[in-house]
């Protein structure tokens, strides 16, 4: 088999030309063609649900809870102790923690208490199947929907918030943005080559209602999501 041979399928030019033909262009589009007029403006007065003036931590906490996540409030100083206490209460024997300066103290505290704790980067995806809880930071949090934004970039990965049945996310208040429009507008200048390969908005534990509409959690992804909300930072 010649692995350098082109794949089956049509060429880019021929494929896009079919689209141009359907749009009744006289000739297929080229880079020299002018850009179309801009799309409809995303009118905030129509779409915005949460405004910047609202009590964002409060709105976020309520919406996250409504989505089935458990929200625990803490402070910067108490974060490590509260995380350890949470892990204890969940009886999570093996924990994987995202490698972030903000979470550094947690690793040693857990080991000190006899838990098997490892940095996420040292646990490969396959080994995560045997981990009980994953602790991650977030890139942002969205008050409108109570969502966590988890990125795979800058030395992270995807597995910690996906594979273990328990996911604990640490959210700093300053990371909360009011509305989906705010979060996605922050990507206005994002470039394909600098974006992480994966950004996921997480809003609740994994769920399904496929069997007779009965709601079941923890189908594939985590069955519990805990948010450690740091109020003073």
């Amino acid at each position, binding site marked *: *088999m010649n692995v350098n041979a082109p*794949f*089956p*399928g049509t*060429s*880019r030019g021929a*494929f*896009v030309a*079919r*689209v141009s033909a*359907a*749009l009744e262009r006289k000739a*297929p589009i080229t880079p020299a063609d002018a850009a*179309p007029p801009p*799309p*409809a403006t*995303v009118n905030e*007065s*129509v*779409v915005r649900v949460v405004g910047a003036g609202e009590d964002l931590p409060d709105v976020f906490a309520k*919406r996250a809870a409504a989505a089935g996540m458990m929200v625990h409030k803490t402070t910067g100083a108490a974060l490590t102790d509260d995380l350890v206490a949470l892990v204890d209460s969940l009886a999570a024997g093996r924990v994987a923690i995202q490698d972030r300066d903000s979470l550094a103290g947690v690793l040693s505290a857990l080991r000190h208490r006899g838990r098997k704790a490892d940095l996420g*980067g040292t646990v*490969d*995806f396959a080994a995560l*199947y045997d981990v009980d809880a994953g602790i991650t930071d977030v890139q942002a949090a969205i008050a409108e*929907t109570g*969502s966590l934004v988890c990125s*795979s*970039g*800058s*030395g992270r*990965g995807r*597995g910690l918030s996906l594979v273990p049945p328990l996911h604990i996310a640490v959210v700093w208040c300053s990371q909360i943005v009011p*509305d*989906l*429009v705010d979060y*996605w*507008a922050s*990507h*206005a200048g*994002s*470039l*394909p080559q600098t974006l*992480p*390969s*994966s950004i*996921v*908005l*997480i*809003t609740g534990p*994994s769920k*399904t*209602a*496929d*069997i007779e*509409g*009965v709601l*079941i959690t923890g189908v*594939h*992804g985590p069955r519990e999501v805990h948010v450690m909300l740091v109020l003073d930072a």
Partner: protein
Amino acid sequence: MTPSPTPLTPPPAAPVHEHPLNVPLPYDLKPRAAKAIGDIRLQQFVGSATKAKDHGRRDGFRDVFGDRYDSLRTLAGDIKQHTLDHLDWYLERFIDNAARAGVQIHYAIDANEANAITLEIARRNQCRLCVKSKSMVTEETGLVPALEAIGVETVETDLGEFILQLDHDAPSHIVTPMIHKDRTAVGRAFTRELGVPYTDDPATLAAIARAHLREKYRHADLGISGANFLIAQTGSIVLCTNEGNGRFCTSAPRIHIAIAGIEKLIPATEHLAVMLKMLARSSTAQPITCYTHMITGPRREDEHDGPDQVHLILLDNGRTEILRKETRELLRCIRCGACLNACPVYRRIGGHSYGAVYSGPIGAAITPLLKGLHNFPDLPHATSLCGACFEACPVKIDLPKQFIMLRKKMVEQGITDLRTRAVYRLWGLMLRWGWTYRASSWVQRRVLRLLARRGDSRRVMPPTAGLAPPAKVRADPFEDNAWLSHAPGPLGEWTKERDFPTPTARSFRDWWKDRGGEQAEVRGGQREGNGDTR
């Protein structure tokens, strides 16, 4: 130099089951529809599930957006329409950006090409086990049997699709594919195919599935997904799911193939915000799905996990035909299923009655366009044009208008039978001139009222308990409709399950004339004295 791969051997032939979507063409919808209407269980399941989601959609939007709902739908519709109106430009931009992100992009004109590309990627990477998340496009192309034919074990991981695959069944709803199946059927399928003791408790069944599928994720070397949106600005693929299987399929295996119709494009991330506000609320009355996953290329050097290769297959398969101006709005569809949940016809006949991958109102419109109007002549007609679908659609697709346009095409292409065309043409002529109108009204009145007089004495049905003899005999000639329980000609279909009224003894025109309405006839804009225009 890589050693030549061991040839893949196909698995032993699976027993042949009649797949609900293998229908003889042209497809006659009536038998399946009749069966569904008579199936009490199906009526209850589909009826309650769709009503709950439809009401949930309305309540959800009202509670959060109040009277902005209509403007939101207009905005979302405008964004999609704009993208479609300039689809080639946005496609080019998307392709360039996806390439910058490291995605390998392929172009499939039809289902065969899409499958061929997928199989080739699997072969070159020696894939043996594929985990797949829910994708209507792969149903459309028949990808799973093609992969299995070359020896790639392919497992559906979406719980509903997993169960359907085990049970050799097909999805019947765009979003909730097993709306037609109950827990006992699931339990039996699990026992039969997985060898587990019988249970029909949903939580236990889900746990069994979870364990079984985790084993698959562990060993899979290929993951296949669809896409909810493609973002031109960043070359990203967006997946909106609730279960987490989509994340597994696109993160655990080393190769990820996404297959997406070209209509999935939107211009930029700011537009994704609008679409996300519309999608889950329209679909299942949730504010947002559990996971909104934006994938921009394969794993980066500094990331711990993720696929080594990400392939995207852009699919045409008839979409450029629908892209033509008349039908273009149909491609705005974001596959939310709101139209299915709102449709009084879908609610009663269920998804399998449509005989195709896409069911409900949107399916009834696009299936004839994708697969030939002459193959699915019932779909544009099996609707009362009530407009509930249009009212529910988050991107304001005018589905009733599209159905009428498809019916027009059927007449123009001679698909509508000769008898029907003759009847309508004759009917049109009868209404076209004053004298033909008056003559045909007179004939209708006399014939039907005569039949009613005769019919009453020949009534086959015994008098019904609720119908006491009337206290007063209605003598008013302007409201004395009689009734037929056996109407003549095509009206005979009507009277199978309900009665048909006759005209009254005298018409409105008669009343107006009695009143001295002659003057008014002249005043009504006509120049001729008898009020007739020819």
